[in-house]
């Protein structure tokens, strides 16, 4: 029985450093190669020694697929390809390829220059790594080698995020990466066709959440910001440089324009400007509205949002600041947080998920005092709001995706264990599917049915279709095909008998079975034959029974009556091998007729 083996190196019952090893049909594929934001030691990268203790990975892995540019999905890529060693193909979408190096470079700077990390990849390594990347477009079917085929589907989430469908032989897997089933202000919803894979590997960040309509969330968000501005407070919105930030920018920008607000909105510069350029370019990846209106005005040309300068932190008066990083674990957002936290007029809005161990996680859990590395203690008096703007599918969305693509098995990754457990039960209960949620390093084996593709010759199919359609329609009737299974070197082929004989160069021998039944019936043989004809016709209403020259034929079964008048008649019944069932049935019938 063929199987699919999955081993999460990261993201198994966990969020962060997504890295999943997939092996099927003798091919090994790595899905995502991310890093963990909560750690600063070797735990931040997936444990590649699982694959091999020594030397490069190239010979063990056939290809790497990156779903999107978030660092927990691509952060370890240069480490793996340049430091551990991998020279095979890496696949990602065009926007991901464009934006990922910016983020990697930014993270490298933070780690190496701010924190003084050693043993980290260099700029050159990022460049070298990116040279190995092959970019794919949506719905483009791509052969990695002669056996692996991959195809990208739109996933929403962030610009360029994709779900990947991977096929080796008859087995197929869909890996979703992160996705979003509800559209937002700048991206559309994830979409996949009914591809019916053997396994769907889905993220499950919000396995136990059903979210309110996004409009309420948006209105809530805008209302909170507006209220804070009105009372003269400052609003800090920690964001990842790319993704949610752009959505919130568009939201605030349009709101500012509609409400004619004057308070400044700042966006901490850095990589954002560069990234915004990519957003402007990859318009085809955005939602309907932006795609349709960009000719008049590109929505990413912000009018009200200005670049931020560090000096503005102490400026009086209300302002809104977007700052990176999103989980308040380092960088500018943390710096601003430290300054603004003690004032109760101010507000911090956490627009997304926070990994355990970050400041964001702490304050969301209600911590009133936050202690930092250098024994610095900050009182948190500002209001802390959590707006679930995170672009992950909620429980309903995950179920919807499962419904859309109709997989045979489901695996949950990228989520917390106990939340997964709930969703797992639900999936088993409502779809009646096997569901798995392996932990990191745990291998999961999924059996798939054996499928053997067989070529069928066209004339054979056509003649069957003709025969079937000629009969009155009946959806329940079975459709049978008579042919010979011919096995050659590597191919299996179903052929018409005659054709197969011709090809094999053998004369066709037909085996006929024949038997004689004795009947006592006076009168000429022909009249007996007539009687038999009527009898058989009555008993086999579904079959074409023909009568010609004293012989009754049903398909290949022949019934013949011999003998003189006033004598016992011999009824010969003969049939070919294919019609064994029918022939023996008729014989049986004739035999029992006499009794």
């Amino acid at each position, binding site marked *: 029985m063929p199987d699919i083996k999955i081993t999460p190196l990261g993201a198994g019952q966990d969020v962060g450093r997504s890295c999943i090893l997939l092996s099927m049909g003798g091919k090994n594929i790595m899905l995502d190669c991310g890093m963990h934001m909560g750690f600063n030691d070797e735990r931040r990268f997936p444990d590649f020694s699982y694959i091999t203790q020594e030397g490069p990975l190239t010979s063990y892995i056939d290809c790497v697929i990156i779903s999107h540019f978030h660092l927990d999905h691509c952060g370890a890529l240069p480490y793996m390809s340049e430091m551990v060693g991998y020279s095979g193909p890496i696949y990602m979408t065009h926007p991901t390829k464009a934006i990922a190096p910016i983020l990697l470079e930014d993270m490298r700077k933070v780690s190496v220059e701010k924190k003084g990390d050693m043993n980290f990849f260099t700029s050159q390594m990022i460049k070298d790594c990116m040279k190995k990347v092959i970019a794919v477009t949506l719905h483009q079917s791509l052969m990695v080698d002669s056996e692996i085929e991959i195809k990208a589907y739109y996933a929403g989430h962030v610009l360029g995020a994709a779900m990947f469908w991977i096929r080796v032989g008859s087995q197929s897997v869909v890996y979703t990466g992160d996705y979003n089933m509800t559209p937002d202000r700048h991206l559309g919803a994830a979409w996949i066709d009914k591809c019916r894979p053997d396994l769907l590997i889905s993220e499950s960040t919000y396995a*136990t959440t*059903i979210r*309110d*309509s996004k409009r309420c969330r948006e209105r809530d968000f805008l209302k909170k910001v507006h209220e804070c501005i009105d009372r003269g407070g400052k609003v800090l919105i920690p964001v990842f440089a790319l993704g949610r930030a752009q959505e919130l920018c568009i939201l605030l920008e349009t709101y500012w324009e509609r409400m004619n607000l004057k308070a400044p909105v700042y966006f901490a510069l850095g990589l954002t400007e560069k990234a915004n350029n990519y957003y402007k370019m990859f318009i085809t990846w955005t939602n309907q509205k932006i795609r349709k209106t960009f000719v008049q005005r590109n929505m990413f040309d912000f009018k009200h949002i200005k670049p931020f300068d560090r000096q503005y932190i102490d400026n009086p008066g209300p302002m809104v600041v977007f700052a990176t990083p999103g989980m308040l674990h380092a960088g500018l957002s943390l710096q601003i947080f430290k300054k603004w936290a003690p004032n109760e007029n101010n507000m911090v809005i956490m627009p997304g998920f926070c990994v355990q161990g970050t400041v964001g996680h702490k304050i969301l859990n209600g911590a009133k005092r936050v202690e930092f590395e250098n024994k610095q203690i900050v009182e948190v008096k500002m209001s802390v709001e959590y707006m679930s703007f995170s672009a992950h599918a909620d429980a309903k969305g995950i179920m919807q995706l499962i419904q*859309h693509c109709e997989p045979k098995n489901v695996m949950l990754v990228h989520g917390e264990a106990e939340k997964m457990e709930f969703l797992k039960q639900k999936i088993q209960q409502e779809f009646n599917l096997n569901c798995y949620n392996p932990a990191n390093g745990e291998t999961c084996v999924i059996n798939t049915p054996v499928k053997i593709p067989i070529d069928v010759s066209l004339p054979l199919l056509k003649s069957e279709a003709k025969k079937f359609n000629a009969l009155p329609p009946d*959806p329940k009737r079975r459709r049978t095909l008579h042919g010979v299974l011919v096995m050659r070197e590597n191919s299996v082929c179903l052929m018409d008998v005659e054709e197969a004989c011709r090809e094999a160069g053998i004369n066709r021998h037909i085996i006929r079975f024949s038997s004689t039944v004795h009947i006592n019936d006076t009168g000429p043989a022909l009249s007996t034959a007539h009687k038999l004809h009527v009898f058989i016709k009555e008993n086999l209403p579904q079959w074409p029974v023909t009568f010609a020259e004293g012989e009754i034929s049903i398909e290949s079964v022949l019934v013949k009556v011999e003998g003189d008048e006033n004598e016992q008649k011999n009824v010969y019944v003969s049939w070919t091998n294919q019609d064994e069932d029918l022939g023996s049935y008729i014989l049986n019938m004739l035999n029992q007729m006499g009794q």
Partner: protein
Amino acid sequence: MTAVLKKRALAEYTQTIQETFPSQPIKKLRLVKKTPAGTGNSSLALISCLESSKSSSEALRTLLRVSDTFELEPNDIPEAVKKLSDHFKNEPESAVRVKILSLLSDVGHLLGADVVAIIDETILLLKNDHSHKVIAQGMNTVLKLGKLVPDSAAALHQKLVDIAKGYLKDVSHAVKCKCLEIIGVHAPVCTGAEAEKLMVLVSLYFSNEDARVRSQAFSTIITLHERSFKINPDIYVDVCEALKDDYEIVRQVVLKLVCLLGNTYPENEVLLPGSEHEIRLIDDAFGKVCNAMSDLSIHVRTLAAKLLGTMKLVSAKFLNQTLDKKLMSNMRRKRTAHELAWENVTSGEWASGKKWADDAPREVLDADSINLMSSGACGAFVHGLEDEFLEVRSAAVESLCELSIRNPQFANTSLDFLVDMFNDEIEDVRLKAIDSLRRISEHIILRDDQLETILGALEDFSQDVREGLHRMLASCKMSTTAGLKMCVEKLLDNLKKYPHDKRSTYRCLQRIGAQHPELVLPLVPQLLNIHPFFDTAEPDVENPQYICVLILVLNAAKWSPTIIPLLEPHTLRHYAYISDTMPTLVPVLSLPDSSCNAISRPQTVPESLEFLNNVISNLDMTENTLRVQTTLLQTAKEHLNRLSEIDSSVAGTAQFTSLYIGAQLIMSQILEKGYWLNPATLATQQANNLQTNIKNLLEYCLKLQFFFVGFSPVEECTVKMFRLRALALNLVYIVKGSNASALAPCHHFLTVVEDMQRDLSLAGLEPDGFTAAVFRELSVLEEPKPGTVSRILIPILSEAKLVRIPRPNTQIRMSSAEIVEPTGQTDTSLKFTAGLVMAVRFEAELRHLNDPSRVRLKVKYPDQKTQVILPRPAHLKPWYLDGSDEDSQTGHNLRLLTSVLVSHQVWSEACNVEINVALAIPEADIGKRKASIGATPTLIDLCKPVKVSVAPKPIKRTL
């Protein structure tokens, strides 16, 4: 004539209309139209070429040429059919045969073709053909031609159906589809076992291997239903199975069928799978359609969203579920923002029909109680309203509105969602949401917090959104004084920001005041700044904010008598002013002291029509001398003009009559003086006078023709006959008085006469004396040369009497335009850099237009240069007068909202540019003096021009 009438009467009740025009002796008037030589038979000739074509590709080319220029005389049809079918039999290439069959279908559509024969021919041709493509096309031809045969020929239709059944055995999907379609369209209407058999036959194809056949099978059922076949509700279960089909074409059709079954058999009971509970069919179908709201394909989702609106019989509990989406966060029950705002919303478990509210909301959810993929209607609209595609969203908004109109409770629930949609990123969807809210407003009482969110949208930059909101607010009910105050304040604030909204805000506040007198009452002192013992400054009565407040208070005062005593004397004075300047906006109040003598003036009285009738019949009765009659007409004209100002209901017809009288006056003036007979001898002064008079006359004719809507044929012919007379006069004048060629005017005149004849016979009316004489004289004329024609016309013209004035027809409305902006009252002149363009905001209200495409903007500069601008169709918006629907209005009421671009070179000082709205009449008679067809069209002004002071400044060349 009676014969003609009878014939017409009969013709209207039979299917085929073959009008052979009354063969009156009009041959001589017929203008020589060059019949394009030989095209009539070219198709036949080409078809004949088929015989000689050597290869199939050559034949195909020929056939393509035939279909490009398809023209056949009825007599040639049988021959063409024969030739085509002959070639069909010998043609080896299937593509050519397909083309021949499609041509046969085209031939069958020609007038005078024997459809049945062609169908038979087609069927015969198909008999020996084996190509699927050819058979499919053949079936298509049969299908199309069969539609031309009336339903009464049941035998033929039955035959077609039988043939289709035969071909159903074909392997190809294309043939099967066409056959199923034929069955759907042509099966003769029957009932009982026969119909049942047909349904069963079609339903066997529900699970065909080809998606296209499946889809066609379902749509055949729908077609049959539309042709009043009875569908057996038992197929419902099978049909629902097909909702899971892989192909969207199937899902789409199935969805329609499910909805159809639901609406046809709403009360049938269906068993829920996995339980013994039975629910109504409509409820189940509704659940199924709701499920389709999360379909993969946008087309299916759009369709589902649309269909939901049609399922009005669904029970309330399922309806309410569509807006229910139970939230949770980390396994904790969460309340939606809506629920938080509205505590009394009953929250319940999702009911899929299995259980309803049998477990109450709890704080920590039990994992087993959560049903993530709950079937049924749950949250369908929540999904639909946040769909990625605006098509789905806007369909969802529409359906939500449709369902809310019928169900007050649902309306209240949906209110929050509609308000949320004000925040949509697409303006059309926002507008739709606002409009929907207006439509369901009768069920709704707005709470303050809801009002607050709604008012938030008022600041929208788009004028359409703001005006939509004004209309909506006008029709809503508010619950508290605080809310009303907030609303009024917001409206006033907004007026400061967007001064253009003045009129719309006035109307809004008028309705608000009239609807909430008891809420306005406590606000009066505050709004009007009335201090208990100090006199406050008298506000400026031209200030729009103040007018707004006045309108609100005065409209409330009509229903709440306690308000009037509160008002200060100056307010009452202002009331007098406003009721005079804006009579439509303030009601008539009975004020305590007669400080101002307001005359209560009803809008319309029956007496005015009576008066109108009187005026006109008086004119008819008098058989006086010309002079007396002229004076009478003059007086009548003045009466009518005044009347049109007084009473709006008869204004149209009064204006029409007065214009008609005016035209008659000019005509009689010209005729009386007699100059027109020999204009060549006149002095320059008189000649000029005559020329202007004739020009005026023609312009009057144009106005009569194009400025009115709601004409009955009588008025139309009267106007046209008058025009004919004017044209005759014009022709005589040209022939006699100028040396310009009269050929073109003569030709034009003859065309008009010809048209006149046709119009009269169509309307079944008698020509008046003049027209009859013209017809009579012209028909005996040998050759219509200008000279001879005018010689004939002179005696007829001078003898003809004035015509009776048509009876008043209250349906008639006169087109008019009112320029709202620019007002022309500002003193400041608009400055701009010379040579560049400046946009001037322009708003006008156009009423009772005949044809909106004629509207033009005319900009006239002081140097007498005139620019004619064609407004963009998007800037002309239909405009409904208060309380009138689309159907009840005559003509087109439009609102023109655009900006006029003005540009000029440097002027030394500011000058006025005149802008007005005009109708363009390209086919006008005035421009026809010379046969210059490409000349600029004639423009008739719809209103007085408005003056805009403009000052182009020289470019400053500074460094």
